[in-house]
């Protein structure tokens, strides 16, 4: 389970470390020192909406239900503070139990993912010889109708899809880069394009630029490039430019 390196009560949550609201909720719920009433719900919603993934109606509905449940828990806490007369609402208790069950059902997969990550560290670096074998030559056909039919049948069968396992494709996702850049800006307020793309190939450089432009288009960041072809300073919207 990802650990928060700093106290989330005092510092902004590093939401880009989490894989969705269940992950975040479970982590916070199991961290005794975090007061759930302090959960920045708006940030959870924002991070989920801007996560670069299109929304599927069923998980979106579930998510709305979950977040509504958390909002209700928080609201009841605020309203019910110091009110000993407050009668537990059976409906709210049902929602709470459903949320608890979702988190409990989700937890094993989060831990299984961590186990896979451990195995990946061991076996992920081994290398296999991936060269596909040539197809075997068809046997010579003699004057036997059955053999001829069998050979024709083999020819008519759809060949297996060619293996691409030996090819390394580069996968860069603008959505992921936007999320990463947003996290960087939320932590430090500014980012250097050159530093972000240090050691990266042309494709990653281009995609990172697209991510910067996307944040600027959304009004979340401003871009400053004092010198043509020089470094681009990406600043979170509203942050002040350092004195030149």
């Amino acid at each position, binding site marked *: 389970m990802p650990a928060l390196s700093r106290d989330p009560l005092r510092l902004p949550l590093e939401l880009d470390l989490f894989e969705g609201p269940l992950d975040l909720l479970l982590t916070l719920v199991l961290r005794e020192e975090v007061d759930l009433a302090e959960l920045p719900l708006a940030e959870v919603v924002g991070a989920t909406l801007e996560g670069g993934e299109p929304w599927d109606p069923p998980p979106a509905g579930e998510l709305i239900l979950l977040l509504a449940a958390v909002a209700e828990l928080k609201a009841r806490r605020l309203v019910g503070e110091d009110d000993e007369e407050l009668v537990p609402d059976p409906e709210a208790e049902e929602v709470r139990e459903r949320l608890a069950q979702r988190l409990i059902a989700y937890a094993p997969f989060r831990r299984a993912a961590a186990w896979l990550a451990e195995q990946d560290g061991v076996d992920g670096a081994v290398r296999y010889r991936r060269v596909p*074998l040539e197809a075997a030559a068809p046997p010579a056909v003699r004057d036997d109708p059955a053999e001829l039919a069998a050979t024709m049948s083999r020819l008519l069968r759809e060949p297996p899809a060619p293996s691409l396992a030996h090819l390394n494709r580069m996968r860069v996702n603008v959505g992921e880069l936007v999320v990463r850049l947003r996290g960087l800006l939320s932590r430090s307020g500014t980012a250097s394009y050159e530093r972000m793309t240090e050691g990266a190939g042309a494709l990653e450089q281009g995609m990172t630029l697209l991510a910067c432009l996307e944040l600027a288009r959304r009004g979340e960041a401003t871009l400053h490039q004092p010198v043509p072809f020089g470094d681009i300073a990406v600043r979170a919207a509203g942050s002040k430019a350092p004195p030149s």
Partner: protein
Amino acid sequence: MSELPRQIEALLFISPEPLPVARLSELTGEDAEPVRRALVELAERHGPGAALEIAEVAGGFALRVRADLGEVCDRLRARPPEDRLSPAALETLAVVAYMEPISRPEIGRMRGVSADATVAGLLERGLLEEAGRPGEGGAMRYRTTRAFQERFGLRGPEDLPQLDRFELTGPEADAVRRRLAEAGHMGDADG
């Protein structure tokens, strides 16, 4: 070295996929037991000091480069393989591995976020594959692949630890309920 281990070594070297004992038997014309003994002999020959190792993985045996030499091998390539799997990808793999065959909406429901892009990436990497539709109009379901087993060093699906090993313990599950109750400031916060 006798002939059978040499033959098996050659077959493992040339094969693009792990070979089960039955297939090795068929190719060498030997019974399963001598094949197994030859595999043990080969594994001893390819000890920790050797560059290659015999691994039982993904339902068969493979001759592969040891993990510590992966980096030097990658220098041969124009572009190093993209090894890193994001936490989202690992979590999606975990859900599929334990629930397969499973559809994208079901994965999304388990994880609380849409899994479309993650599943597409895992399909492209060959770690997931389509497993058919349950019926007319049903959503495509997915399962893990042999490459998944190879990557994570699994001899087969049975090598995955039982899921209940990862479940929250009773006190942990109680803590979840208690914390949510405390957050709502309702009723029996102790239970």
